[in-house]
């Protein structure tokens, strides 16, 4: 039985290594400096790249963070500090349910409330869709981290005459900041890999763009687009773009893990 259980664990790790290894070996072939600094070119032209998609992904993450992080953190603060137990349970249940909503559904939602009234696809709509995916994750990790702050710190601040809002923001949230930042980074890693909510919100764009009100490229959309094309050259570019994306996401995940371990040991 021990054998079977270890074999299961081994199998999962082998799958991980196979997938990551294949991405590494295949992706690195098309990866070079000109790939990172040039925009896509028509098939057959040299020096085609994904600079616009890298910038686009960063912009989308930026929009999502600007909307999603404050909302999520303050919602988490409320859950941990002020909510009564029954009302808190209801809120927590709804927020956990939002975590389970398929990202494609969030994409449809963003289309109906932003793209349709505005009449065109936009980076803003894509960022907002990603923000919706981000909020529940940030809210729940913030809540958990704030709960770890010792009660005595609140009492000390209040005893010194600090009002509740200063105690919450300046003492409690500050003490939990490391954990909150960890949660925020993991949420960013999660949305950086999303494609489905961008399909009909941010769509894509063939050139470098920083206009928030027009469509924008993203690494994930680019990978999807290249993967569905009939050209070997574009397939190679899909693998290289994947290497960039997965490298970014794994760096965040591993980095957060290492930082967290240093803090708690």
């Amino acid at each position, binding site marked *: *039985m*021990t054998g*079977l*259980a*270890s*074999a*299961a*664990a081994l*199998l*999962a*790790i082998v799958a*991980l290594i196979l*997938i*990551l290894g*294949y*991405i590494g070996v295949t992706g690195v072939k098309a990866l070079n400096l000109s790939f990172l600094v040039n925009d896509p070119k028509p098939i057959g032209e040299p020096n085609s790249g994904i600079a616009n998609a890298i910038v686009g992904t960063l912009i989308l993450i930026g929009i999502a963070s600007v909307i999603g992080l404050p909302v999520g953190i*303050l*919602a988490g603060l*409320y859950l941990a*500090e*002020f*909510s009564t137990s029954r009302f808190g349970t209801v*809120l927590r249940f*709804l927020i*956990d*349910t*939002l*975590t*389970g*909503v*398929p990202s*494609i559904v969030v*994409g*449809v*939602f963003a289309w*109906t*409330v932003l793209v349709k009234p505005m009449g065109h696809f936009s980076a803003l709509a894509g960022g907002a869709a990603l923000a919706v995916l981000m*909020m529940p*994750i940030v*809210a*729940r990790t913030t809540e*958990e981290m704030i709960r770890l702050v010792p009660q005595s710190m609140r009492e000390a601040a209040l005893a010194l005459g600090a*009002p*509740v*809002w200063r105690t*919450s923001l300046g003492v409690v949230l500050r003490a939990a900041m490391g954990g909150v930042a960890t949660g925020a980074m993991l949420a960013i890693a999660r949305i950086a*890999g999303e*494609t489905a909510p961008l*399909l009909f919100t941010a*769509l894509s764009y063939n050139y470098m763009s920083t206009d928030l009100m027009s469509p924008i490229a993203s690494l*994930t959309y680019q*990978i*999807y687009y290249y*993967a569905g094309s009939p050209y070997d050259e574009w*397939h190679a570019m*899909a*693998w290289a773009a*994947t290497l960039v994306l997965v490298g970014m*996401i794994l760096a965040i*995940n591993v980095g957060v893990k290492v930082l967290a371990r240093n803090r708690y040991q």
Partner: protein
Amino acid sequence: MDTVTTGRTPPLTEPRARRPIKRALAAGRWADSLFKLTTLMFALVVAGLVVVIIINMAMNARLSFDKFGFDFITRSIWDPVHEEYGALPFIYGTAMSALIALLIAVPLSIGIAIFLSEHAPRRLATPIAFLVQLLAAIPSVVYGLWGIFVLAPLLRNHVYPAIQKVLGALPLFQGQINGLGLLTAGIILAIMVVPIVTAVTTDVMRAVPGAQREAALALGATRWEATRIILQNARSGIVGAIILGLGRAVGETMAVTMVIGNRPEISASLFEPSFTIASAIANEFTEATSEMYRHALVELGLILFVITFVINAAARLLVYAVTRGQGKVAHA
């Protein structure tokens, strides 16, 4: 000053000194209420989004609902040209691909969870658990890419022909093999749901009191018998973990869209192309030119939303019951 010279206590000094403090306190209270109210508002925004999404989608599915009513769920025709829509092929594809995924992922995940919570020393368990969780960090579209160019050719050329040779008598494994289809989607989904099922199962198994294991071992049970007692105690939590995995599999979009073949037909064979609700929306939403077409797709989305809502609610209730809130279900 007055007090010192006359020796009398003038009635005005005290209130005069207190007033600023009082005012400061009142202002502080006011600021505190405002602050609490603000955080409450943000909490309501996040929690209320679920409700807003469902109402919004219901409104945007109106046309299709008015025309087809509840028959939408049981109709198996999907014909944008003649504006005839039904959700059955998509519901079938979603259910079957998720079922295949769970059949593969559940035994594997429970095995990993047993290894992590019962057998592995802590120094080994922590990094292995982290590596398994990394599988969840890989984006869906990347699984799709890997599915198209690595997994599908492998299955088409080596695995599926072998399966067909042995089990070809079953209608499940008949028909043409092209690598992209229901079974391939199920296998990719299995890899994607292993992390979540493993994580929650490990949590609920660790939540079972250690005394249970010690009592069993003290009575002369073997290690496997003790593990079985733990599994039995954690049973409802494990069911919760499986249902959470189901929720994940049902809502997965990109990887499935890229390998399932995208054909809205119900076929007995697992090798044939199929379509899920999520992949139908991903594929057709931007092409939906008529209002009716779009409303039909949004109604598909609404069905998916309701399915995942019910699944998640059930799973969380089961997991909460076992871990009583100590486990972290936030990573779902």
